[in-house]
C-alpha cells in the first residue's frame, strides 16, 4: 500500500492517487517529437479529429436510424433528413467525413512509405496502421449497407459473393455470411451490429496499439535521422529550445497540428454543406430493389483501385490478384530489403518505384469508376499487372540499393 499524506491541493490529491503529473509529462509535455517535420505529420491528428466527427455524428444518426429493410431508407431520408432538427447536418457530416477520412488515410500511408517510417523498429507502427486501414474499410462497407439504397443492396450482394471464391463455389459460406440467400433483414441487422459496435471497438483498440507502437521508436522525421531523444530532450529542458532537435507533443507539436486541423476543417465542411455528391452517391437515393441492378454500379472511390485489380481477370485469377492487393501493403517492411531509412528522394530506384506506384493506383482508381469497356478496360488491365509487377520487383530493387 502506497503512503498517502494529507493533500495540499486538489492537484496534489489527484496526483497521489492517479499520478496525473507524471501521466501528463509522459503523454504530453515530455512526449518528444522531432522538430524536423512538415505538415504531413499532422495527418494523424486530422484522422483522430475526423474519426471523432464520425463518432459524434454517428451517435445522433443512431438515435433515429431503424435497421429494418422496410423502414431503414425512410428513417434516413425522411426522418433524419427532414424531421430531425439538424438531422441533415449529422447525415452530411457522416457521409462526407467517411469519404474524406480515406483521402487522409491514403496521404498518411504514402507519407509513411515515402519517408521510410515503416523500417528500423517502426514495423509495428506500419502493421497496426495497415490493420486500421482494413478495419476502417470494413467499417465503411458495413456503414454503406445501412441506408438500404440501391448501392447498399448491390454492394452487399457483390462483395458477399466474393466469398464464394470463384470455382470453389462456397455458396454455403456466402449464405452464412448473409444469414439468408440474398441480402435481407438478417444481413442488414448484423452489418448494423458490426458498424455500430464491433468494428468501432476494434478501431479504438487498434488506435491504442498504433499509439503504443510509436513510443519506443519515436515519430520519424523528414531526413530519417536517428535522433538521441534523451540528449535532445535534456537540451530542450535546459533552455536551448532553438538548438534542440525535439519539441514537446503538447503544446509545441499540438499547436502546429491544430493549425493544420483548422484548415482541414474548412475544406471538410465546405464539402459537407456545398459539395457532397461524391460522398452521398445519387444512386443510393433509390430504395433497394433486389430485382433491378443499377445501370452503373461502382464502389466508393477509395475501394476503386482494389476493385479494378479484381475486374480485368477471369474470376479465379481475379480473386487471387484481389487477395494479393489486400495483403501486400502489410508486407512492405519485409519486402523492402534496403537498410536505408531515409526519404525516397535519396533512394534512387525506390523513388521511381514510389511515384510509379502512386500514379498506378490513381489510374486503377479512375479505371475502376469508368465503364469496363474498350480502352478503359485495356488501361485497367495494364495498370493491374503493373501493380503486381511493382510489388514483385520491390525486393529486387531494394536489395541492390546503395547504402546512404
Amino acid at each position, binding site marked *: 500500500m502506497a503512503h498517502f499524506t494529507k493533500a495540499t491541493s486538489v492537484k496534489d490529491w489527484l496526483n497521489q492517487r492517479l499520478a496525473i503529473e507524471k501521466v501528463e509529462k509522459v503523454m504530453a509535455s515530455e512526449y518528444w517529437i522531432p*522538430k*524536423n517535420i*512538415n*505538415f*504531413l505529420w499532422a495527418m494523424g491528428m486530422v484522422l483522430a479529429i475526423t474519426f471523432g466527427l464520425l463518432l459524434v455524428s454517428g451517435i445522433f444518426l443512431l438515435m433515429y436510424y431503424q435497421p429494418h429493410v422496410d423502414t431503414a431508407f*425512410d428513417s434516413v*431520408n*425522411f426522418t433524419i*433528413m*427532414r424531421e430531425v432538427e439538424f438531422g*441533415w*447536418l449529422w447525415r*452530411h457530416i457522416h457521409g462526407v467525413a467517411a469519404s474524406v477520412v480515406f*483521402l487522409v488515410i491514403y*496521404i498518411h500511408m504514402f507519407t509513411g512509405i515515402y519517408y521510410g517510417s515503416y523500417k528500423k523498429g517502426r514495423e509495428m507502427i506500419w502493421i497496426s496502421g495497415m490493420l486500421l486501414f482494413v478495419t476502417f474499410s470494413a467499417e465503411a462497407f458495413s456503414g454503406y449497407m445501412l441506408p438500404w439504397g440501391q448501392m447498399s443492396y448491390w454492394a452487399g450482394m457483390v462483395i458477399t459473393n466474393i466469398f464464394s471464391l470463384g470455382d470453389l463455389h462456397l455458396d454455403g459460406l456466402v449464405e452464412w455470411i448473409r444469414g439468408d440467400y440474398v441480402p435481407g433483414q438478417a444481413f442488414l441487422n448484423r452489418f448494423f451490429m458490426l458498424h455500430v459496435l464491433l468494428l468501432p471497438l476494434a478501431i479504438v483498440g487498434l488506435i491504442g496499439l498504433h499509439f503504443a507502437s510509436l513510443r519506443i521508436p519515436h515519430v520519424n522525421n*523528414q531526413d530519417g535521422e536517428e535522433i538521441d531523444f534523451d540528449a535532445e530532450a535534456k537540451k530542450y529542458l535546459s533552455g536551448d*529550445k*532553438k538548438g534542440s532537435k525535439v*519539441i514537446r507533443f503538447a*503544446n*509545441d507539436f499540438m*499547436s*502546429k497540428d*491544430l*493549425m493544420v*486541423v*483548422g*484548415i482541414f*476543417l*474548412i475544406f471538410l*465542411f*465546405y464539402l*459537407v*454543406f*456545398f459539395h457532397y455528391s*461524391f460522398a*452521398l452517391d*445519387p*444512386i*443510393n*437515393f*433509390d*430504395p433497394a430493389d433486389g430485382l433491378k441492378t443499377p445501370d*452503373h454500379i461502382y464502389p466508393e*472511390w477509395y475501394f*476503386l483501385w482494389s476493385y479494378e485489380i479484381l475486374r480485368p481477370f477471369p474470376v479465379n485469377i481475379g480473386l487471387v490478384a484481389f487477395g494479393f492487393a489486400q495483403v501486400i501493403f502489410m508486407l512492405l517492411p519485409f519486402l523492402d530489403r534496403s537498410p536505408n531509412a531515409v526519404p525516397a528522394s535519396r533512394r534512387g530506384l525506390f523513388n521511381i518505384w514510389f511515384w510509379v506506384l*502512386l500514379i498506378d493506383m*490513381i489510374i486503377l*482508381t*479512375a479505371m475502376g*469508376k*469508368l*465503364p469496363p469497356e474498350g480502352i478503359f478496360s485495356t488501361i485497367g488491365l495494364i495498370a493491374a499487372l503493373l501493380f503486381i509487377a511493382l510489388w514483385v520487383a520491390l525486393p529486387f530493387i531494394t536489395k541492390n540499393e546503395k547504402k546512404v
Partner: protein
Amino acid sequence: MKNKEPLILAVVIFFSLVTYWLVEPYAHGQMHKHVESQNFAYADLPALTKTGDASRGQELVMGAGACVGCHSIEKAGFASTMDPVDAASAYGVNPPDLSDAGAVYDAKFLAELIKNPAHALKVEHKFDPAAGVMHPMVPFYGAGGDIDQETADMVAYLQSIAVSQADLTPKMAYDNACGRCHALKYENWTQLGDNPSFKEKKDDLAYQVKVLEYQDHLAAYMGKLPPDLSSYYRSRSVDFLKTFIENPQNHLEGTAMPRVGVTAVAAEKVIEHLADAGDTKRHERESVGIKVLGFLVIFAIFAFLWKKQVWRDLH
C-alpha cells in the same frame, strides 16, 4: 533547411484533384451522355395559328368536345363522375381535372393533345391506331368547323379559368402534371391525392387498400408502377429531371411514360416541388453552412496565431 512545405502541399493537392476529376466529373460524363434541353419549345409540335375565343371554347368543352364526359372541371362546377379507382380500372389512370390545365400545360401541346393524344404524348409506340390499340383519350375530330380554330378556342377557355402563372404553386404543378401516376410519400401524396388522416385504424387501412387497387390498375396500364419520386431530386440531377420531363424518350427510350407537355415555368415548379420533397432543408443547409465556414475561418486564424506564438522560441 529549405522549407519544402509549399511544394509538398502542391503535390498533395495536385494528385488529389487529378483523382477527383477522373473519378467524378470525367467518369460521370462518360457514364451519362449530356442531353441538350429545348427549353420546352416542343419544336415537333405545330405552332398555334389561330387566336382562341374562350366563350366559344367553353361551349365546345361542355358540348361537342365532350371533354366533361371523362374530365372533371371543379372550377366550372363539373365534379368527378367516377371514383378514381373505378376510373383507373376503366382508363388505366384517373383522367385529370382540367381546372388549371391551361396554366400547367403548353398551349401548343394542349391543342395537339385534343386532336391527337398519342402523338402529343409521344406514346405512339404503344398506342398505334393502325395496330388497333387506341389511347384511352378519344381524339377530337372537329365540331364541323375549322378544327384548328375550335381547338384554339378550347385551349383559350382552359387558360381563362386556370390560375395565373404567378399563382401556380410547386405543389399544384406537381399534383396536376405528375401526381396521378407518381406517388410522393414524403409529401404525404399518393395517386389518389393528399393522404387524409383517419381516427380509426380500420378506415386508414381501407384507404390504403383503395390506393393499392388504383396502383394495380395503373401498373397494368403502364407496364409497371411509376416510381415514387420522393428522393428523385437527390438521385437525379436537375439537368436530367428537366430534359426527362421535356421528353421522357430522351433518357428512357421506349418508355410508357407520356411527354406531359408542361410549360417551362410549370416544369421549374415541378422540380421545385421535388426539391421540397427530397431536399427539404436545402435553404437551411446553405445558411448554416455559410455561418459554420465563417466560424471555421476564425478558428483557423486563431489556431495559426497560437502556433506562431508557441513556435517563436522553437525555430
